[in-house]
């Protein structure tokens, strides 16, 4: 499938935000309306809608056509496609950098106690 915009970039950009990750996590338990999503996030409906738009654009979330409820759900295939290994790569570095933090604290302490 050819696309002009790198789809992986869009997915990563969409998932870079903690609120959007919270939305994705919530949707992983099943479909939800914008109202249901907004409540635990303590956000306004327009605020949540803005985040949902980014997720939709990245193809991570689809919104139903039911005019009353318009439930949102995860586009599972899309998530599976790329987000897994990119997120894992990030997490691996996060873990290594946490070790680096600890090591920096250790050597700085030594420096001070000298």
């Amino acid at each position: 499938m050819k696309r002009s915009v790198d789809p992986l970039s869009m997915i990563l950009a969409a998932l870079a935000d903690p609120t959007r990750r919270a939305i994705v996590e919530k949707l992983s338990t099943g479909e939800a309306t914008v109202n249901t999503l907004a409540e635990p996030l303590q956000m306004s409906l327009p605020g949540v809608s803005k985040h949902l738009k980014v997720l939709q654009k990245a193809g991570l979330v689809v919104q139903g056509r039911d005019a009353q409820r318009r439930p949102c759900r995860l586009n599972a295939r899309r998530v599976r496609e790329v987000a897994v290994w990119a997120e894992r790569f990030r997490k691996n570095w996060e873990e290594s950098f946490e070790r680096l933090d600890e090591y920096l604290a250790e050597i700085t302490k030594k420096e001070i106690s000298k």
Partner: protein
Amino acid sequence: MTKTEAREVTLTLPSACELAMTRAFSAPALVLFEVWTKPEHVRKWYGVRSTTVTVCEIELRVGGAWRWVVTTPNGMEIAFSGEFLEIDPPHRLQRTERFEAVPGADSVVTLTFDEKDGQTMLTTHMLFPNRQQRDLCLKSGMEPGVKECYDNIDSILAAL
């Protein structure tokens, strides 16, 4: 940002051939530069917790070679090597990087150390010959991670 707050690694893909990560550290740039360029330091932090740095060679001069190998608990070796292109302490460090398991996937990695108020923002920028190689690099991060199964996305997928 407080010093005790968990610090996130921000991953972006500026273009189809690039990958960039940023992360803040509570240390001066010079210290951070040192822990990236001296083997006795690198051995203490490089890689996820379940792995061990078993080889760490650094010939810190332009054109000098480096080679880091991490070993997983089941004995699998993950080797990276390359050479230094630019050494400008404590601001910039540029080197080629080869993931030895994927020949031909050499990238140019540029580390930038931006110090401000005692904090240093580290940017790791990776430039690949093409998109396939970049994506392979992202995928290569999978292996050690498989053993670390506390990933957010895992739980998301499990629930689908």
